[in-house]
Structures are given as structure tokens and as C-alpha cells.
């Protein structure tokens, strides 16, 4: 019980610290790739506290509700990961968080927020099936959706689930809002329709959005680390490598259209996932 309480506390406090730092590193590396000096690594924290001190303004009360929904469900998803709970339910909870963000965009009568929200919804359409297929892949391999089961296995998931690993890298690009998939909103000054789904958020509520993103990046990298849990440090290294890889992709790619993203994900991504599961099913049978 005490151990669980500690996990919760550590997650709540440390995850955003590491997440914010990662975003700082992101900005630094991106700047260097573009021949700039870049902001200090702890710039995201400066930004965060600056935003917190800004005036409370809003265009609709529902905005607050959904941004809290986004943050809280993101944290709960992350807790599911760190408490080694059910992976499938984690994906569904992450889905609730994403839906909250979309509804936050929809809850104002702002054309730009609506553009962003519709695009965010299409992003969900693109990545959600891959995450769910990953859950089924894990079930196929371990006979359980429990993350604690993954940790009990000697053999890393990466050996059997590598096609799904490739598909999840694709999800990572979408979720990190990196080119070519920074479609709903993006971090750096890419081509942008105002600020996409977050257009109408400002001040402290925009800070909450950033906070949620810090939790999210830890969650995503955590999911990637699940592919190599024994020993875990290999998995963490893989996750960090994937993170750096995303930065490269971001800087060499241009933003693509929504339709292209969904088509690519529903063709290549799904085929990778389905073939992967079919292979395990026919070699291992029903566990």
C-alpha cells in the first residue's frame, strides 16, 4: 500500500519534471539542427510559470472542464503504466484524455479551434487502432493485458513484436506533434493555422495543456520502453533513441495532410500490426 502511494507521488512529481526537461532538450537540439543557439534547457519551466502568472481569460467555461479532463486522464493513464496495471484500459483512458482535448477545441465557437479539433480527431483515428493492436499483440504474447506480466517475461517483447514497434514509432510522431504529423497543433514555428486545437487557451489554462503534454511524453516513452523490460534500462535507452529519432524526422520532414496521415496509418500501420498478431497467433496458438 505504502509502495503504491510512493509510486503515485513519484509519478505525479517526477514525471512532469523529466517531461519538461525532455521538451527543453527537444528545443535545444532542434535549434542546433537549424543552426541556432536555442533557449536554455529549462526554458519550458520558465514558460510554464510565466503562463501560470498570466490573467485568467476564457471564451467558454467548458474549456476549463475539458482541459482538466485532459490533464487528469493523462495522469491516470500514466499511473496505470507505473502501477503496472491493465494496458488495454490504459489505452482507453488515454483515449478519454485525447477526446477531452478535442472537445475543448469544439466547445468554443472559434473557427481555428474547430480546425484543430477536427484534425486532432483524425489523429485519434490514425493512432488509436495501432495502440489497441499493440494491446492485443501484448495479449497474444503474454496471455494477459497486465503490464506486470510484461515485466515477468524473460524475453523482451521487441523480438516478437518488432512490426508493432515500428507502427508505435509512427504513433509517437503523431502524439509528439512532430512533422510530418504536426497537424492539429505544433510546438515549433512550423506552418501553422494560428495554434490549432489550443488556439483559444491562454494563460494558466494553456499552462495546464503544457503540463499534460509533459506527462504525455513520459507515458509515450514509457510505452516504448515496455518493448524491452528485462533489463529495463535497455528499454529506456530505446525510448530515448526513439525520442531523438523523432527530432530528426521533425527537422527533415514537412507537414503532410490529414488524409495522408490516416491513409498511411490505416494501410501500413495496420498491416504491420495485423501481420504481427497473425504471425503470433499461428505460431503460438491461443494461449
Amino acid at each position: 500500500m505504502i509502495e503504491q502511494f510512493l509510486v503515485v507521488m513519484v509519478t505525479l512529481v517526477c514525471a512532469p519534471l523529466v517531461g519538461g526537461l525532455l521538451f527543453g532538450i527537444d528545443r535545444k537540439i532542434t535549434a542546433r539542427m537549424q543552426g541556432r543557439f536555442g533557449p536554455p534547457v529549462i526554458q519550458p519551466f520558465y514558460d510554464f510559470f510565466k503562463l501560470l502568472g498570466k490573467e485568467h481569460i476564457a471564451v467558454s467555461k467548458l474549456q476549463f472542464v475539458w482541459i482538466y479532463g485532459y490533464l487528469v486522464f493523462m495522469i491516470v493513464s500514466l499511473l496505470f503504466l507505473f502501477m503496472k496495471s491493465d494496458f488495454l484500459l490504459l489505452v482507453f483512458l488515454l483515449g478519454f484524455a485525447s477526446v477531452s482535448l478535442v472537445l475543448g477545441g469544439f466547445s468554443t465557437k472559434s473557427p481555428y479551434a474547430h480546425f484543430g479539433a477536427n484534425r486532432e480527431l483524425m489523429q485519434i483515428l490514425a493512432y488509436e487502432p495501432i495502440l489497441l493492436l499493440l494491446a492485443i499483440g501484448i495479449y497474444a504474447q503474454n496471455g494477459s493485458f497486465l503490464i506486470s506480466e510484461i515485466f515477468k517475461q524473460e524475453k523482451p517483447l521487441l523480438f516478437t513484436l518488432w512490426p508493432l514497434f515500428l507502427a508505435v514509432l509512427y504513433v509517437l510522431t503523431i502524439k509528439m506533434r512532430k512533422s510530418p504529423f504536426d497537424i492539429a497543433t505544433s510546438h515549433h514555428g512550423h506552418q501553422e493555422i494560428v495554434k490549432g486545437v489550443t488556439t483559444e487557451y491562454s494563460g494558466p489554462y494553456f499552462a495546464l495543456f503544457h503540463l499534460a503534454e509533459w506527462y504525455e511524453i513520459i507515458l509515450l516513452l514509457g510505452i516504448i520502453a515496455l518493448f524491452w523490460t528485462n533489463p529495463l534500462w535497455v528499454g529506456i535507452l530505446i525510448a530515448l533513441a526513439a525520442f531523438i529519432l523523432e527530432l530528426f524526422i521533425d527537422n527533415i520532414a514537412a507537414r503532410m495532410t490529414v488524409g495522408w496521415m490516416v491513409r498511411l496509418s490505416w494501410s501500413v500501420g495496420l498491416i504491420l500490426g495485423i501481420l504481427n498478431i497473425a504471425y503470433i497467433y499461428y505460431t503460438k496458438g491461443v494461449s
Partner: protein
Amino acid sequence: MMAIAILLPVAAGILILAVRNYYARGAVVILTSLILIANSVFFAIKGPFTYTPGGFNWGLLITILDYGILIFYLYIGFSLRNWLVLIFAATQIIPLAYFEFLMKANIQVTPAFVVDHLALVMTLIISIIGSLICIYAIRYMYDHEHHLHLEKSKQSRFLFWLVLFLGAMNGLVFANNLVWLYFFWEVTTLCSFQLISHDRTQEAVHNAARAVWMNSTGGTAFILAIIYLYATQGGSAALSVQNLIGGGIQASVILLPIALLCYTGFTKAAQMPFQSWLLGAMVAPTPVSALLHSSTMVKAGVYLVLRLAPVYAGTYLSIIIAIAGAFTFFATSALAVSQSTGKRVLAYSTIANLGLIIACAGINTPLSIAAAILLIIFHAISKGLLFLCVGTIEHQIWSRDIEDMEGLAAKAPLTTIITAVGILSMFLPPFGMLIGKWIAIEAAYTVPLAAVFFVLASTLTIVFWTKWLGRLLQVLPKIQQPFEKLSPSYSVPLWTLLIGIFVVGIGIGPIYQNFLLAATNNVVSGNQIFALGLNNLILTSASLLQRDILGLFPVWPLYLVLIIALLMPLLLIGLKPTELRQVYMCGEQTGGTDTDEWLAEADKKTRFQLGGYYYQNALGEKRVNPWANTIAILLLAIMIGCGVIVI
């Protein structure tokens, strides 16, 4: 007791026909509803039992009424010049006459009614949710006729068929005799015809006729299955449902009639390619849709398929049923994305969820059967609520179009909140529908193709619900809205169902342990009452479902999260008028926060309008239907083929 469940609605219906006063009629409906609810709760407490009515030749009465209904179909076929109705009425009446007069069939089956835990679950759904919808209909039909400016009121007629429907459904889930089951099956088809065609517009009558002929093909398959069973398995014992599912007959011998009965279930549950009758049924007044979709009619279809699950367990038929159901789940979820009418989105979502339930029956493991029962319950509550919400919205804005619901949060905040919770409960954790889906996906791994369809469909589900919810909640900057007033005939069913979502959702663990586990065991083990005796069996087979699926994770903390995430910000965070700002329009607005005008070309004041995306080119009916229907027909053909070539 049995008489109350089945005959009381008939008697009350006749009384309602006689009463012409609005208040007196409402009182009769409410009283009937309360008695039905009390009776079903009493059944549930009392537990399983069997019953054979005596003292009167009920079999003869049912035979006469059977012919009455079929002759009525012939009549409507003639009067509407609808040859399909005519043909499929004939294909029922001729075999039925052959069966009863030429084969001189003895159709006595004892016990006539078997009430096991599955039937108890069904009767609770029918009696409670169905009754709430009837109460809702009292006021709804009054407003409906007021809006249409009808001179002659048809409310009595409407309520008569509505209440009769509940009796027929109760009979359907209790019946053990296949011939009686067929009779109740036909009564539900008849009720749906009367209710769909209620407004007597050309479209309504046309769509009602389509519902009849499509369900009549199912009825024909039902009759053929009865004749086949009777002829090959020797006599009336083969007509007992309990004997059929109890393993009394070797499954491979009777796979063809079972496939036919599953086909019948598919037609009634509006599975692809039969989805068009349920979509057409949307022309009816909304309480009809609520009733057809949540507690009656389509649930009869999934009930039959689920009931027969132990017979086809382990056969290829089972796998095909799983794949066909999962395919319907996927295809109709995709179609729902392209719909802009609220009721059509709901209809496609119903068909999709029924597909999911049928797929669970086809997967046919204890886990998937448990998922199917959970989904039946949660779907009935949430979908019933959503249809009633759409009806309420319709009577506030007089439109069913999702685009017209834009900014409803400002016009009718209470209805909007209830609708929003209803929509959230359809596709997000921690609500019951999602818990059911979660278990279903876990169970689906034994049929991987079904699992893949589940994954794709549940993603599409997120898209169309979120889209709709987004249109509903979109508002101009406002501080506070007073709640609108609703007639108690509206608000009581709405609140009851809303509370039901939370009570059943939070209490899912104990409810499952104490009640649904037994129902699951009933289905999985096929009861086998003839060998063991009903009560014995329920005690002994309780250990059958070893895996404690819901003990795995307590659901209630997630409801706590829901409160922290959404309810508390909604209630606690205030917004002062000084904190309100306009939305960003590049500085081209004309006024303050309460206007949505901006300066368009040549500085002309223009109201800006937003619309939803419906992806017609990718997912429109014209684009998807030809493919999806072809695949669905192929799957159906394979399904029947599995029965013919016994493998």
C-alpha cells in the same frame, strides 16, 4: 405472475384504447409500468422457475392468433401493392399450415415457460426501461400531435401498441416452446409495423412495410427451422428450447436449423445487410425508436443468438457468427461517421453494438458471453437514454439534425448535460459500455479477425460520438444559463436512466458476482435442466466461470477520477464577466463577446458559421454500402452453408 408479465400489458393496452382522456390514459400507463417493474423485480428476487399455464387451450389460441397476424401481413401486402411483404407472408403461412395440418404436429411442450437468469436479465431490461419509455411517450405523443395539428388523436392507439410490445417481449424471453417463441416473435414484428407506420405518411408506411418483409424472411427461416427440427428429431421434444441447448441432441445433426434461427436473429437485430429496416424505422415518433433500440425488438434478435450459443459452440458456424457480427460492428461504425441526423447516428451505433454482442456470442467463451450480457444491459440503458434525449431535443428545436443542435448548451443546458453524459457513457471509460468492450476485446483473441474488427470499430466509435458531442457543446461566450423546465413525463425517465447508468456502472462488480455470473453460466452450460433440475444446476455451475474478470480491477476509483476531472471543474471554477473574451477571428469581429458577426469581404457584416465534418467521400453510404452489403451477404451465405455442410 407470468400472467402479469405477459397478459397485463395486453389488458392494459385494451384499457388504454378505451380511455380517451389524456390524464386518465397517462394514469393507466404509469400504473401498468409500475406493476410491470415491480413484477420483474419480484421475478429477479424469486429466482429461476418454470411454468406451464393450464386450464385453457393456450396452444390453440396462439395458433389462431398466428394465422391472424400472417393474414394481416397478406392484407397489408395487397393493400400496399408490396409484393415482398406478400411473398414473405405466404412463405410463412404455407409452411405453418403444412406443419400444423398435414404433419398434424403435436406442439405440446412442457414446461411452456422457463425463466432462467438470462431471461430474468432480459425481463428486467424490458420491464424497467420499456416502462420508462412508455411513461415518456405519454407526454411526447401529446406534444407530437400538438405540433402536427392533428384533429383526431391517435395517442391511445400508439400507447396500446407500445404497451403490448412489452408483453410480447416478456413472452418471447420466457417461452420454452419454439412455436410459442415464434408467435411472440411475430407479435413484436406486428407491433413494430404498427408503431413505425403510426404517422401514416407515405414514407412511414413504406418503411414499416420494409420492416415487415425483412423480418418476415427471418420468420420464414424460423418456421423452416421448426419443421426441420420436428421432422428429423421426432416430435415435440425437439421444439423445447431447453432441450435444444441442453445438449439433448448432437449439435452437428441440427446445425442447419440452428443456422436458420441465427439468420432469424440477424434479421431482427438488423445486422448487415438488413440494417435498412432499422434505419427506416427512424421516421417513427422517437419513443418507438427508443423502445425498438434499447429494450425490445432488436434485443430479441441478440437474445435468440445468445440463447443458442451452447448449441453451436465449437463449430465453424460459431466463428462465422463472430466474424459477421464483428464485421457489422466495423462497417456500421464507419457509416455512422458520415451521418448528420442524430437519430441515424444512434441507429447505426445500435446496429454496431448489436453486432458486437452477436460477435461475443459467436466467440463463445464464458468470458465473451459475460461481455455480451453486460453489453446488452449497458447498451439498453445508455441507448434508451440517448433516444429519449434526442426526442426531448427534437421537441425543443423541432429538428433531428446534428447541425441544428449547434450551441444547444446555450438553449437547453439541462437536456444538453444529460445528452452529453449519455454520449460519454457510450464510448469512454469508466462507463459500462466500455467495460463490456474491454472484456470483449480480451475474449476476442480466440477469433483474431473479430478482434481486429473490434479495434477498428471502437476507434471509429470515438470519432462519431466526439464529433456529435462537439457540435452539441459548442457555445458562444456566456456566463450562466438557467436550466430549462421539462415536463415530469420527460424528466422522470431521463433522470432515472441517467442515475441507472451510474448505479449499474459503479455497482458492476457486485451485480456481476450475484446475478450476471449465474446468467452467464446459464448461457454457457445450456442449463441442462432436464438432467439436473434447474436450481441444482445454477448452484453447481457457478464454479464454471473460474476467472473472476471483474474482480481484476475495481471500477469505482475511475468514477472518482471522472468526478475530479470533469464534474469538479464544472462546479467549482467560476468565470467572471470581466474574464470573458471573444474568440480569435484575426481582430475582425464587429462587437462584444455575445456576437458572432465579423467583417467579411468589403467590410460587410457576416455571421460566421461552423459545420461538422461528415467525410461523405470516404465513408458515405453510397460509397460504403455496396461493398459492405456484398461482404455481409457473403458472410450470411457462408453461415447458412455451415449449417448445410456440417463441419
